[in-house]
């Protein structure tokens, strides 16, 4: 299972970074969402195995740590709020600038 998780995290991460670097603003917003998923999966994997001295390691039976799952829950909520806000911003930008090309959304340079 380790290798599957590792490959999945790596693939999602690479995809996310690649999409973020695209010029299309909507594609790069998707990149952010993919990146958030990659990181959530990474956080999950930190709790799936016994850590060095995790809070619950005193229990006799090896069990997955609940804390990373709580962290992921928080991170999901935050990234959902962030994504919604990015999409709202993109809506205004595409309306105001009439483009989805990142290079054309730069009228601030003076």
């Amino acid at each position: 299972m380790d290798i599957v998780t590792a490959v999945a995290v790596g693939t999602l991460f690479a995809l996310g970074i690649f999409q973020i670097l695209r010029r299309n603003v909507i594609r790069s917003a998707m990149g952010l969402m993919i990146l958030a998923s990659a990181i959530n999966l990474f956080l999950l994997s930190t709790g799936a195995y016994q850590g060095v001295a995790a809070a619950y390691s005193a229990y006799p039976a090896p069990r997955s740590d609940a804390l990373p799952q709580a962290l992921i829950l928080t991170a999901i909520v935050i990234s959902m709020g962030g994504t919604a806000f990015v999409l709202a911003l993109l809506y205004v930008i595409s309306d105001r600038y009439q483009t989805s090309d990142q290079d054309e959304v730069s009228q601030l340079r003076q």
Partner: protein
Amino acid sequence: MEILFEHLPLLPILIPLAGAAVALLLRPNGRLQVGWALATMGTALASSGWLLTSVWQRGAPLTFASGGWLPPFGIVLVADLLAAMLVLMSQLVLFSGLLYAAGAGDRVVRTPGFYSLFLLLATGLSGAFLTGDLFNLFVFAELLVISGTILTAIGDDRYGVEAAYKYFYISLLASAFMLLAIGSLYVSYGTLNMADLAARVGADPSAPLLPAAIGLLLATFMIKSAVFPFHFWQPDFHTAAPTAVSAMLSSVVVKLGVYGFLRMTTLLFVQQAELIQWVLLLLGSAGVLVGGLSAVGTHNVKRMLAYSTLAQVGFILIGVGWGTPLALAAALVFTVNHSLIKAALLMLAGAMASRIQEKSAAFSALTGAGRSFPLPGALFFAGALALAGIPPTNGFVSKLLLFRSGIAVQGWVILALIAAGGLLTLIYTMRAFQRIWWQEPAGPLALKAGDRLLAPALLLGLVLLLGLWASPLVQLAQETAGWLQTPAVYIGAVLGGQ
């Protein structure tokens, strides 16, 4: 009083948070909302003043285990001198920002959510300084970013949305980095409590993911603080934000990264601090040069001040990078002084921009506009002197301390850079003063009454006061630096001397 004292480290976070919720309910009555926001911020400011004096008198950090979950398991709030000092500084500047917003003519300050978002900004900043838990720091930093971005996106500037987009994008990336660092640290050490983590990292620095976590955290705080190679979003963002907000962003919000660096070098990664300090010295010096030169080359007074923040944060990072007690004290004094000066200068720039017919902070539009307004001119002049570090202002005190610590560690090259940076500061601030208040206008200017000047006047009063009567702040900074030099103070206060 007893119950308030027990919850003291919580108050600077809880008061603005509750105030923000109530401010939303007061939407129908604008004046009441303004009054409420000011009262809330004033109470929060009083509580953080109480916090700082209690911590200082007690001589040990105050902690608060939220929900009764004892550290290292629950989330703990830790008010050591560093946190209490930064909270007081930021709430002071945030209070002045609210005062400015109350007297501003922008449309945005009459948006129903403006004051709530402003109070949430205060919550995020105070929480990030006070929390003793790495993940909680992430949450508060995220609150800070989101409220700051919305405040910019709804601003009057038509490019506000573009600036907000750029900033939010890079901030989301920073949060991603921070989460990765948190995951790496958690899997290596099984804790997220900063004191516990510091003790465990000190006991076993050989975890393979530790260098990755350090690098990711460094990148995160560099983005938060707009340190040199990560600064590209900052001038846009700080120029397009509404004046009251950009004065906060460019003064206290960028200090979150400085706080992060201080915690990294003096608490979390003491054994690896040398490498981190070397990076900070390098990037800080680069920031001083790049920021100073870019500020000289701008055509917009707000943008100039935003680039100047890049340079001034560079000075602070040099202090953190030298890392001696004197240099840390210098960095802390510099942090406080720069916040006051930069907030006042940005408010004055925005106030002048609001006094011309079509609101603009470009030099071409502002040339000669100040000739009818001598009072903001005098205030700007005082602020410019303070930014460049000329007595009798507090900027002189911070530069002097930085120079002395530089001489003590014999960093001659960087000292020469600091001197050059100070000269550049003088050049660009005086050029701005000359363009706006000295030069003849090109044609007849249509001027109007603009934003009120109470807030920057108060801040500049403090700037002069702290320049003439500097010893309390310097003493406080030196004592703080002493605490920072012994991480056991922080760790012992949280874990009970384990």
